[in-house]
């Protein structure tokens, strides 16, 4: 097998490992990639990242411990390189209300040093949603891995948030946002009717 073929095969293996969910949650550990791709796995990932960038995707590395950047224990994910638009969101699995609730909860957690009480978050959420909806959205965010909840009802940042969200960018965007006249989309009207 020529070296070009070997590299091409390694790229395909890396892409398969990163795209397909082989565990409960997505992402692959560094040591798993090392086992399949060899010790130069970071070079393969760099090459793959370059190819993925053309498609608007990127490989994201999340270290278990930021102070000790151990690549073998880090998790690697594929994420989008660009932000989604409102119309992308309407056609996705997420509801606009759910994303709004998630944004509120995470902004509060970030602004309070990475930790806040569930009561404080619900207080703000209840200015926008009925209580039962606010609680449902928080539960859903916990299930999806965006938020962690301790036994004392304290909310902290979840693993998915660490991968998908830019903390600074979110707070900056919240401060810069201008309130709009709320215009309901057809999907929202239908959802409300169903409820």
């Amino acid at each position, binding site marked *: 097998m020529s070296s070009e073929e070997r590299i091409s095969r390694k790229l395909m293996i890396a892409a398969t490992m990163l*795209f397909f969910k082989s565990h409960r949650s997505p992402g692959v550990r560094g040591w798993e990639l090392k086992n399949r791709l060899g010790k130069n796995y970071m070079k393969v990932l760099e090459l793959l990242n370059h190819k993925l960038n053309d498609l608007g995707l990127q490989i994201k590395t999340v270290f278990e411990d930021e102070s000790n950047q151990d690549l073998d224990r880090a998790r690697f994910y594929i994420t989008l390189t660009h932000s989604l638009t409102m119309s992308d969101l309407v056609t996705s699995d997420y509801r606009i209300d759910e994303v709004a609730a998630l*944004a509120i909860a995470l902004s509060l957690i970030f602004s309070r040093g990475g930790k806040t009480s569930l009561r404080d978050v619900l207080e703000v959420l209840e200015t926008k949603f009925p209580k039962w909806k606010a609680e449902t959205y928080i539960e859903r965010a916990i299930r999806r891995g965006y938020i962690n909840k301790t036994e004392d009802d304290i909310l902290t940042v979840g693993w998915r948030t660490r991968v998908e*969200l830019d903390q*600074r960018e979110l707070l900056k*965007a919240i401060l810069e946002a201008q*309130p709009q*006249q709320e215009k309901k989309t057809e999907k929202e009207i239908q959802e409300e009717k169903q409820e």
Partner: protein
Amino acid sequence: MSNKIVKKYSREEIERIISICENIEKRGLDPFSVDVKELLFKLRKMLGENPDLEYYLLDAETIYRIATIIALQHKWLTEKAKSLFIDSQLISSRLTILDKKSIVQAFLKAWRPIISISQLTPQRLHYGLEHFLRLPPRRDERKYGWKFTDRELELSKIYLEKEREEIEEKMKNLYSELIERAKEKDGVDYWEFISKPSINETYDRAYILSFLISEGYVEVKKNPLKNELRLIPNNQKVPRRNTTSLVISLAGGAR
């Protein structure tokens, strides 16, 4: 008597300090809401007034709690620096003023969702249906939500049964073919075995073979030096004790 009252008062004071520190740590409150210098001053004064073992122990615990608060202050400052020192009250009031759509638009600017692919095989679907049917019924019959009619249940069972039979038939044929080809040989090369002129057929054979491997009818031997995968059929099903996943990229290896 008055000395006892002073002692009790001091003890309560120390316990109050401990509880304040614990509360800040557990509830994630602002660690700068306590004056560490003042706490230490009070503690020194109380210890001077009560030089006995009980107070030394309480003092050690209080010092530990105060040290935790100092560590939290350090973390708080780091987090604040990361979030550009944005005041939490300001964020709360902004969130209250903003409408849902503007909040979502702000969120989308900072959000880069993970891309991943999930897969479901007919076999897994079958397990799912079996599990669903085994669930105990609710107290009364379901009055809302999606409900299976008897006809739908019957159809889904027939469909899944047909799928299962088809896969089992294919597994049987592929297993016999593999046994035939592996006769008097030390296994068969994986790529040689699955490769067919049509790509669909190749994928189909790889898919069915994966079931034979998982079920324990076929062993896979990997030689990393030669970059070779060999299939060795078992004479009968061998129960798997330790399983591991093996990723094989067909596009990378198909010839």
